[in-house]
């Protein structure tokens, strides 16, 4: 069975919002991705060690409670140090607790080293299409 990519998924920090990422995992698996799911309450280290273990192409972090910014500080750098330079980082959910322009939110997380930041309220289908496209591109890049 050919997997489109190996993914590590999970919710970071003290956040308990698990429904969204569960739904996403289901859709990703059905679509041919290999998904290693960490559930809730993960530290940066939890993500990194799992990603190293399974040689993940990407880490997908979900965060809804609004504390994402605090929780992912320095994550890109730690990944790089742990030999995960090639591993792309994605984040999605509801990332800030105050009303703010999406562009501002997005920029804040891109600046922190994320490959892409998912708009909130995407139905599973949209998110999937989006990820699929991105992963095809990223695959091409990696193999090129």
């Amino acid at each position, binding site marked *: 069975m050919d997997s489109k990519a190996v993914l590590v998924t999970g919710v970071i920090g003290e956040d308990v919002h698990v*429904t969204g990422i569960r739904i996403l995992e289901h859709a990703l698996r059905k679509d041919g991705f290999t998904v290693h799911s960490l559930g*809730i309450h993960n530290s940066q280290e939890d993500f990194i060690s799992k990603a190293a273990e399974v040689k993940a192409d990407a880490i997908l972090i979900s965060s809804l*409670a609004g504390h994402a910014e605090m929780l992912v500080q320095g994550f890109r750098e730690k990944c790089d140090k742990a030999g995960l330079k090639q591993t792309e980082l994605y984040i999605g959910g*509801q990332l800030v607790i105050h009303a703010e322009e999406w562009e501002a939110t997005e920029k804040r997380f891109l600046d922190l080293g994320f490959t892409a930041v998912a708009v909130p309220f995407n139905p599973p289908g949209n998110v999937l299409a989006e990820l699929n496209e991105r992963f095809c591109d990223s695959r091409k890049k990696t193999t090129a």
Partner: protein
Amino acid sequence: MEISNRKWSDDFFQKEREEVLSQWSTGADVDLDDAVAYHKSLPDSQNAALKTLKAREEGKTLLCPSLGSDTVENHKSLLLHMQNEAGVDILTSYIDSLTRNCRFEMASQGLMKAEATGRPVLNGFPFVVHGVQKTREVMNAVDLPSMLFGPTPDARLTHEIGLAGGHTGYSGGPMISFWNYTKNVPVESVIHNFQYINRLMGTYEEQGVPILYAVSGAMPSVSPPSLMIVPEIIEVLIAAGQGVKHIQLNNWLQGHVAQDLAYIQVLKEKADYYLKECGFDDVETITYSVSPTGRFPVEADQVYALISHFTMIGVMGGVQVCGSRTIDEALHIPTKEGSAHSFRNARMFLNMLQPQKFDISGHSEIQQEKQIMELEVDCLMKKILEIGGGDIVKGTVKAVKLGILDQPYSTSQLVKGEVLGVKDEKGAARYFDMGQLPFSREIKDFHREKIEAREKILGEKVSYDTIIQDMTAISAGSIL
């Protein structure tokens, strides 16, 4: 000490208190005598237990928002705005999620950042970091009762501060905290922490300060109500075991009128029944309802309709307290303006309907829902008490392991997680998968038939994709 539903001894409680109060510097300020004196200095109208009991007598429904902000200034102005502009009857102070997880150091950093920038950083009020006096500063500014809000596995220190700080209630409970707010914490640890909280409440009661404890059972995700009712009754019995005297029964409405109204009736009747069965004769119960926790629509126009819809069910169900999500629910932590808009909407709907005393409680469809719900609840409760040798706590610990107590979409890895709900052709939640629930043929057939009716209309078998669709249906604009 093996965990059981026996009342904690004073020694055991006091020893643990010392430990708890030393978790953070503010613990040292907690003084029970002083706290009791402070509560007694407040008018009855600022006590949540007394106010809701009065509403029960008068046949009135009170409105209660759920929000919280990080700094004292922000939180105070939020509560004042709700009191004065939104016209609610009871206030709540959401606990931020860092404090809920006892990450006091991080909460303290967040609070400092919020105080420095003026921009909210935490998603609730960090009780522990603030301490007793700062909490009272908020309570002194308002005229209404306020309750702590937010399930979490360990809110012991938060309660010490919050109750001493003048709050007269709490919404949360061991079961909901276990199912929906933990990953690796065993259910017995969560129950232990709640026995502490309940014992603390019991202590206030013994000193003449009524405290309202709101049990919550489990968060629904297209869940047949017995999945919420049974854990709620468990929470009721645990609380009564430690001397809690005033209990609010939270009903998590999902939008199907007949099923939701049956839920309200069954929860109240069965909670009262099992309290008596287990020998607790002096516990008062009142009812509360609130809209579901599934994803909300982004458009305010649509959320207004949901607020009205769920207020309708609450009023028709005759609850004493009606909560509501806010028009900005999907977007961000509710602002005070958003909350005021929302509760003015709820108030108007309530004011249109309640004076009519339109009683549909006897409706055949409600009675049908009720009948099957009662069968389910009794079946589970009997089994749990049986395997616990009559002790609800012992039974609960075993039942979770066996999957006799189970939940869909639980965050815990210690839960079977086999049960799943799906909507039937009218939008009611039915069991798609019963996992290890020891249900009778009759119950099984009922759910199967209901699901088949949906499949007929869909023209295909109900699948996991149907469930996902059901979970996001309301945010997409329809119950189905």
